[in-house]
């Protein structure tokens, strides 16, 4: 198979096209920049906090953002250390190495400092799927870290696979309102205490981000989180890849259809927007009296005392 832009061998063939190494890098970067431009995700002078685990996706995102935005924007890398021995400690070393190499300031925050326990301990004392609790804590801590560092936006490396997974999971769970709040920018309603999240890799597949990190010699750990694959998400993720192999553009069609629906329901969304409260314990935006992170923190405190 040859590259669609020249006669070299292609190294990838996806719904985004078939490209050799040189043209893949070029189109990967231009598609990321097009998403940013099209949805006006980053404006000149804004401070962009980048959620950076030190893994392939977030390092690829930091690479592109530092390359194209560091001169006109402040970029700060934020890492949440869940406390997963043999995994996160390694990716934190990698994160530091690349932040130093690309001249990006970085900060690290830990679950242990926030809750008193690491993720390894939490999985032992708390029943249920680890990813559910981890997601609540990570989202909360990323938002508060972005606030603390005066960020205008929080960029995450969520890609097309992640978005398609979220859409299908919300559909399967009959949560249409949650589904149409997905997209390139979330939290756009001006809520005090909430930093809008942006997804510059929204139209880039997981395979592409992985390949991009490999060919740019971004020496990220190419193994998943040891707790990943549990629960419903793992099943949906595997099925989406299977479907994409059978029918190219499956993921893109899922994402594009959701964005079209979102546009249709935009007016309805604005009028129907749920009332946002402030958590009575920490003051963060919350859907009820306590935010999800404080509920979890209370639960951890009671489990620790057993």
């Amino acid at each position, binding site marked *: 198979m040859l590259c669609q832009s020249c006669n070299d061998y292609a*190294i990838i063939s996806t719904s985004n096209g078939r490209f050799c190494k040189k043209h893949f890098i070029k189109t990967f970067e231009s598609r990321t920049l097009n998403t940013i431009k099209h949805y006006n995700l980053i404006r000149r002078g804004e401070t962009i906090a980048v959620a950076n685990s030190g893994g392939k996706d977030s390092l690829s995102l930091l690479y592109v953002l530092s390359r194209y935005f560091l001169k006109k924007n402040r970029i700060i890398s934020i890492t949440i250390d869940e406390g997963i021995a043999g995994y996160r400690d390694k990716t934190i070393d990698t994160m530091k190495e690349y932040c130093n190499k690309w001249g990006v300031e970085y900060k690290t925050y830990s679950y242990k400092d926030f809750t008193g326990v690491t993720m390894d301990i939490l999985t032992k004392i708390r029943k249920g799927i680890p990813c559910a609790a981890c997601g609540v804590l990570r989202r909360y801590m990323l938002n508060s870290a972005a606030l603390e560092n005066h960020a205008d936006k929080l960029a995450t490396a969520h890609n097309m696979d992640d978005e398609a997974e979220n859409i299908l999971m919300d559909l399967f769970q009959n949560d249409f309102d949650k589904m149409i709040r997905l997209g390139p920018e979330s939290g756009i309603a001006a809520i005090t205490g909430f930093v809008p999240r942006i997804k510059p890799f929204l139209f880039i597949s997981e395979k592409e981000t992985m390949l991009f990190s490999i060919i740019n010699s971004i020496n990220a750990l190419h193994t998943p989180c040891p707790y990943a694959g549990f629960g419903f998400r793992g099943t949906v993720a595997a099925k989406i890849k299977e479907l994409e192999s059978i029918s190219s553009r499956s993921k893109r069609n899922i994402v594009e259809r959701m964005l079209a629906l979102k546009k249709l329901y935009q007016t309805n969304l604005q009028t129907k927007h749920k009332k946002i409260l402030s958590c009575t314990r920490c003051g963060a935006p919350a859907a009820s009296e306590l935010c999800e992170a404080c509920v979890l923190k209370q639960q951890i405190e009671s489990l620790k005392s057993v």
Partner: protein
Amino acid sequence: MVKITVNNINFGERVIEIENDTAADLIKALGANDDAVIIVGEGGEIFTADRKLKDGSRVNVIDVFSGG
């Protein structure tokens, strides 16, 4: 039949025999799919599913995973 030595982080090293000689056949023999793996040759060359693999060659099969 073509014999390919495959390296993968999950199952280590394994010799796989495939009837046809493309990367797609190897992916199928591994029970994977094209969207879920990246095939890298010995010299670091990355193969698309249609590329032919030489008998006796070695490849790394990298799983595409979520997260990071």
